[in-house]
């Protein structure tokens, strides 16, 4: 059985009798979407990754894997999470060339921007990063940039700086459409402390309505 791949089609074929072939065509293989979120410890970067992964698996019924890496510090150190979403089984659990990069600290911008896929999506909080340092990279690789001032929105509109990550989940849901609004809200309610559900849903909606 031979196998060829055309875009997102995976075609298996074999010759049964001279000139007669048996084909198996799989559609949608390798359609793994990779999201990477970078910031610093205490911003809720990892929780936002958990919420996206939970929304995709438990509520949208897709496959998802969420991994994380962090320094030994409890707060202030570098923090990163990666979420892979797909209709098929996910083998390798780490992002290799993210389709979507979400940046919540300048350090993370410098560290991760180069991994971003050609024509990938970059979402940043403009109050936390200086985008001009990578302007060449952005034009060269045709990066689609969205500036979402999530920390300011969380502080001024919701009155809680710590929900900036949930505002960002709203932004990601709107821009990428990788998870449904319904699934995102269910995952938020399932993941945040009891009593804070309303504030978090408001934060999500503020982010969702930003674009």
């Amino acid at each position: 059985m031979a196998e060829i791949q055309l875009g997102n089609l995976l075609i298996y074929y074999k010759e049964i009798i001279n000139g007669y072939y048996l084909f198996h065509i799989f559609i949608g293989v390798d359609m793994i979407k990779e999201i990477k979120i970078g910031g610093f410890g205490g911003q809720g970067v990892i929780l936002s990754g958990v919420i996206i992964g939970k929304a995709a698996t438990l509520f949208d019924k897709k496959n998802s894997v969420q991994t994380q890496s962090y320094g030994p510090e409890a707060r202030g150190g570098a923090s990163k999470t990666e979420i892979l979403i797909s209709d098929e089984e996910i083998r390798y659990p780490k992002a290799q060339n993210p389709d979507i990069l979400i940046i919540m600290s300048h350090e993370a911008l410098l560290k991760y921007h180069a991994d971003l896929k050609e024509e990938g999506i970059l979402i940043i909080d403009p109050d936390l990063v200086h985008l001009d340092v990578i302007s060449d990279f952005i034009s060269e690789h045709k990066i689609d940039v969205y500036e979402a001032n999530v920390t300011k929105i969380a502080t001024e509109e919701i009155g809680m700086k710590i929900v900036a990550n949930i505002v960002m989940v709203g932004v990601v849901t709107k821009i990428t459409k990788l998870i449904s609004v319904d699934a995102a809200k269910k995952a938020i309610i399932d993941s945040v402390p009891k009593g804070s559900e309303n504030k978090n849903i408001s934060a999500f909606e503020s982010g969702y309505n930003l674009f």
Partner: protein
Amino acid sequence: MTKELFIQGNEACARGAIEAGCRFFGGYPITPSTEIAEYLSTTLPEVSGSFIQMEDELSAIGAVIAASWSGVKSMTATSGPGFSLMQENIGFAMMSETPLVVVDVQRGSPSTGQPTMSGQGDMMQARWGSHGDYEPIAISPSSVQEFFDFTVLGFNLAEKYRVPVIILADEVIGHMREKVRLPDNVETFKRIMPKEDPKDFLPFKNVRNGTNPMPAFGDGYNIHVTGLTHNELGYPITINPKVHSNLVRRLVNKILKNRKDIVSCDFKYCDDADIVLISYGSPVRSIMETVKIGRSSGIKLGYLKINTPYPFPEDEVVKIAKNVNDLMVVEMNLGQMFHEIERVASSNAGVHLFSEIGGTLPKPNDILDRILELL
């Protein structure tokens, strides 16, 4: 109805332990295993179990051994540095045939190494870490679902063979979140208690699986539990060569003679493969992807996923080696299981090592590059 959760590997392990009937955890927290202790510290009391944080790993494994002899399924969870400290008492548990589960969520090593990064540097420590001849059972999960399933399996094997079982996980699996299906009914092995009159009972005799039912302290069986060479009654007999030889051979054979029941491997695309990749634990995810990419560009790759590093799946590796040109062992150390595989397979196939150290998972494209050099 089966329940679906999106949880971390460490939480899946802790949930598996509860389902398997574990009712005691003794430990000392260490990254990247801490979430196991954290989950059990609140959950065990809810199911009438006990949780204790000891002063260090030496006493932690001691508490687990004692709890097991009180008739309770018991465990601990640690990482490389703590696993090193537990070796002496793991040997005691081997010699005294104490069923228990040690979860080792491996991190970058040696020494305190890289607390928040992944590694597989404890493979040989799990095999030979304590002194003397013994046969450990070690199981390596490569998904969050397997961390749940293999923890249950670990408890079942520990109870069936009266041995410590080591779950050799790693940071990637411990901290990764994936969907897990929790079954309604988990098959568990209930500890077999002796039925004989306490006067006639020999606790260290071979009557079933190479061992004997295990009484609990307080049941009325006044038995002696020792790390010294002992007779079937449990009394120390340390200068009789035959007693020692019989004891140690029985302990080793109860695992080796039941190899078929314990060993577990998964194969894929091996029938027509030229090169087979071999791994265990989280790098299995890398080789699965490598095989997928390789196959789609016409390279005949297959993979062998080792679920039970120990007892080492010798027959399975040899069988594969006879059908292929090359084997490539992918692991997160500078070559540990590689030497085991080379030992049994090198007369039939070329055996190569792909090492990744530094804390991150081997990248499929890097593995593929190495494969292209072989072609």
